Each structure stands twice: as C-alpha cells, then as structure tokens.
C-alpha cells in the first residue's frame, strides 16, 4: 500500500479548491498537453495559506484599491528562487519555513536566537495596507499582516552603539535554487538606519490578505518599508544584527553606482535603467506619477531633513 506524506495530500486538496488556477492550468495544458498538471511544484506555491486569527485593523494604511491576490503572489522579485517574476511562485512551494529561528545579535542586550513562533507572539498583529513601489517602475497595494519592527527593537534593548540594523536572509542553496548561481553575493543583506527601523510605519510582515505569508512573498518573516523601493523589504529573515556602521547591502555590493543604502522612493532621482518619475500600478493600464517617499512624505520626510537625497540615494 502506498502511504502519502501529509504535505503531499494537503497540497493537492487545496489546489483543487483554488479557482484562480484555471488560466495557468489552461496554458500549461496547452503547452505540454496536460503534463503541466503532473508537476506539483508549479502549483503548490500558489496555494492560499491558512488564515491568521486575531489580526487588528491598523489606523496606518491606504484606502486605495488592493492589488489582486494572484498578482501579489504571482509576480515577485525573490532572486533566491529565480530571476523571473514568475519563478518564486513556481519554485518556493516546497520551501520549509518551520522550524525557523531568527538570531538577534550585535549591539543589543538581549542577544539570542528566537524561535519564529515565539517572535511573532511578542507583539499583536495588525493589518496594514501599504503601497509598494519597485525600483523597476511598477507598484502594488498590499494588505500586509505584521507588527511594527519598533516593538521588537524595544523588546531586545539595543545599546548606544547600535546605529544601524542589518538584516540577513537564509542561505540554503538546497532549498533556494536561485542561490546556486552567484547572481548576487549570497546571502541577501539589507539594512536600515536605527531611526528608520524605529519608525512606526516600518513593519515585520508575517502575512498578507489575512493569510499566512506565501513563501514567494518572503515567509516566514519579511521586512516592509513602504517609503523605500521594494528590494529593501528583505525576505526570509534569519538574522537581525544591530551595528555601528552602515551595512553593505547585497545590491550595493552588486552595483554601488545604481543602488544606494537609502533607496527612498524619489521621482527626481533616476536609476540608470529606469526613470523613476512614473510607475505602473499592477492591474492598471496607464502609468501614474510616482510620489516622493512613495506618498509617505508627511510621515517620514523629517528623517531626511537637510540631507542631499541625490547624494544619499
């Protein structure tokens, strides 16, 4: 008798329930004459996650129309799972997000490893609908579930030497096929100035659309900094380190003239490959003007008072 593994059964059942797969299935069926349906990996990544209980609505957040779930979870930049936008959804389905620990260290009193579930329980979860602007000139509106990074930072008590916070993604080429090629200098590293990290808008997300974060969106824990370009929102975080000097992020290492540490959304500072004046909101036909600090200038402008944002891009 054949005994199926638990996750195999679950994956299949949920796939059948999903309604939005029709299109993909149709294409796959046409392209490979139905063989596509036999490739579970392609679909598991699109399965809707379980609902997260007890999420409070937050006063922070936009009332703009939300980007459809299938686009938020099907069009991702997560190079650890491939460099095409469809790759993360296709390749992250089997990524294991439990057990998972996050090491908190550096210039901090309570330096230790936290189990992810313990970490999530430390603060109440909120729903926050944020705009997200990618450096490539597209944007989305995403209802995140998470808690302010601020509350975690306060709990672990950084010392006076802590000027910056450095985040690191898991390094595991077995599970993250994109890491087998040196597209970036793995693991992915991002950073914030401490005051940016302490800003009430800065979020550690564990879900979206009221559900557990899909793997392709950075499960189990990711950063969301809505006034910065999307790549600052590091995914699959395993380490949060408090440091004195400005961290060298993965993108700065890759192309220092193209990506700065701050990477604030700024329509007046162009990237050599993309004009940043306009953006295409996913799902919309016409482009819209990009707003300073992605429309969060009133809340975050003071963090950069007196700074030359062309120099500190």
């Amino acid at each position, binding site marked *: 008798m054949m005994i199926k593994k638990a996750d195999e059964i679950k994956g299949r059942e949920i796939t059948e329930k999903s309604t939005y797969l029709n299109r993909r299935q149709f*294409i796959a069926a046409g392209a490979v004459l139905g063989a596509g349906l036999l490739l579970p990996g392609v679909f598991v990544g699109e399965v809707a996650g379980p609902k997260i209980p007890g999420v409070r609505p937050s006063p922070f957040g936009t009332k703009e129309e939300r980007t459809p779930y299938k686009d938020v979870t099907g069009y991702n930049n997560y190079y650890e799972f491939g460099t095409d936008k469809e790759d993360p959804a296709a390749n992250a389905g089997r990524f294991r997000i439990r057990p998972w620990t996050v090491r908190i260290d550096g210039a901090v009193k309570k330096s230790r490893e936290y189990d992810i579930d313990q970490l999530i329980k430390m603060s109440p979860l909120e729903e926050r609908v944020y705009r997200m602007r990618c450096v490539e000139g597209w944007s989305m509106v995403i209802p995140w579930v998470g808690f302010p990074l601020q509350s975690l930072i306060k709990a672990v008590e950084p010392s006076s030497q802590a000027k910056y916070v450095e985040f690191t993604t898991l390094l595991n080429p077995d599970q993250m096929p994109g890491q087998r090629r040196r597209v970036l200098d793995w693991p992915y590293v991002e950073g914030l100035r401490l005051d940016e990290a302490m800003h009430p808008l800065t979020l550690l997300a564990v879900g979206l659309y009221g559900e557990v974060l899909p793997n392709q969106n950075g499960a189990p824990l990711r950063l969301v900094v809505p006034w910065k370009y999307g790549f600052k929102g590091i995914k699959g975080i395993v380490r949060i380190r408090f440091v004195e000097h400005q961290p060298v992020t993965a993108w700065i290492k890759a192309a220092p003239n193209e990506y700065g540490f701050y990477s604030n959304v700024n329509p007046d500072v162009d990237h050599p490959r993309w004009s940043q004046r306009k953006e295409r909101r996913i799902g919309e036909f016409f482009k819209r003007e990009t707003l300073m600090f992605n429309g969060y200038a009133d809340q975050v402008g003071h963090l950069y008072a007196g700074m030359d944002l062309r120099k500190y891009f």
Partner: protein
Amino acid sequence: MESSTYRLKAAFFMACLIPLAWLAIQKGFGGLGANPIEKMIRFLGDWSLYLLLGTLALTPMHRLFHLSWPTKIRRMIGLFSFFYVCLHVTGYLAIDQFFDWHEIRRDIIKRPFITVGFVCFLLLIPLAVTSTNKMQRRMRRRWKQLHYFVYPIAIGAVIHFWWMVKKDITRPAFYAMVLALLLGLRIYWALTRIKVGVTETAVHEKAVRRG
C-alpha cells in the same frame, strides 16, 4: 517564381507570424501575467533579436552545409526582424510611454539601453527601405556597403538587451555568444580569403619574376 521557392517562402512567412499570433492569443486569455505590457514589449524585443540573429545565421548555413534555401529567405527574415522591432518600439511609444514625447526624449538621452536600442532602430530603417530588388540594382556596390551595417546593429541589439538586464545576464550573454560565433565565422572567412589572395599574388609575382 519557381513553385518550390514560393512554397518555401510562404512556409517561412507563416512561421514568422506564429509569435505574433501566440502573443495575441495569450493576450486574449489573460495569459501575460500581472504586467502584460512589460511582457508584450519584452516578447516583441526577444523576437526582434531572434530573427536578426536568424538572418545572420543563414549565410553561414549556406556556406557550411551547401544549402541553397537559406539565402532565398534571408531578405524576408531580415524584414520580419524589422517588423518585430517596429512593433516593439511602437509598444514602447504607445503603451509604455503613451506618446509622452518629453519623457521619451529623456529616456533616449538618459537610459543607456534605450539610447542603444534607438540608434539600432534608426540604423535599421535604411536597410529595410533599400531591401527591394530595384534598390539593390540601383545602388550596386553602395548597397553592399550599406547592408554591412547589420553587423553593428546586431552588436547594438545585444548590448541593448545586456544593459537592460538588472543582474542576471544569462540570456544576453548567450545571445552575445551566438552573435560572436556568427561574426567570428565571417571574420575567419574574410581573413582566409585575404590570405589565399596574398599567397596567390605572391606565387604569381614569383612566377612573373622568374618569367
């Protein structure tokens, strides 16, 4: 036209329309994903490049495998490449920039990959315009000189792709290799012809001197 040549051309003509049909079908079924405009422009850019490299592959095929059909469809494939470039550029002008000429001008000046693409596009126009038999006859040797421009255009197209890519250069690097091979063969043939030419002259001169 001989009927076999006619059939050959008709078959390739239809084949060159398949990508466009595919694009239209995908569009109809919403199969272009979350950002269909980007997908379309990139898809058309891809096929511009494939057909351009395809055009450049035909002469080597003719020479290496002693086939006659590749040279018969060379002009058509080249024109189809131009056709896809036109759609690609129109896509950019119409549904990416919505004919915002100020923004387009800025793009051409400020974004290096668009600068290169734009130059390639401009250079392709005279090649397409002079592609008729009549023009070829009228221009004689100048025609050949003009159409040598296809080489720098192909190099420019690969650079356009390379500079567009954010970090993963796998695909442009692959097409750069294909192009290097196609151009390398021509350089090799040109050099060996010159060498043959030189030795022949040398032999001839010796013979004359001995004479």
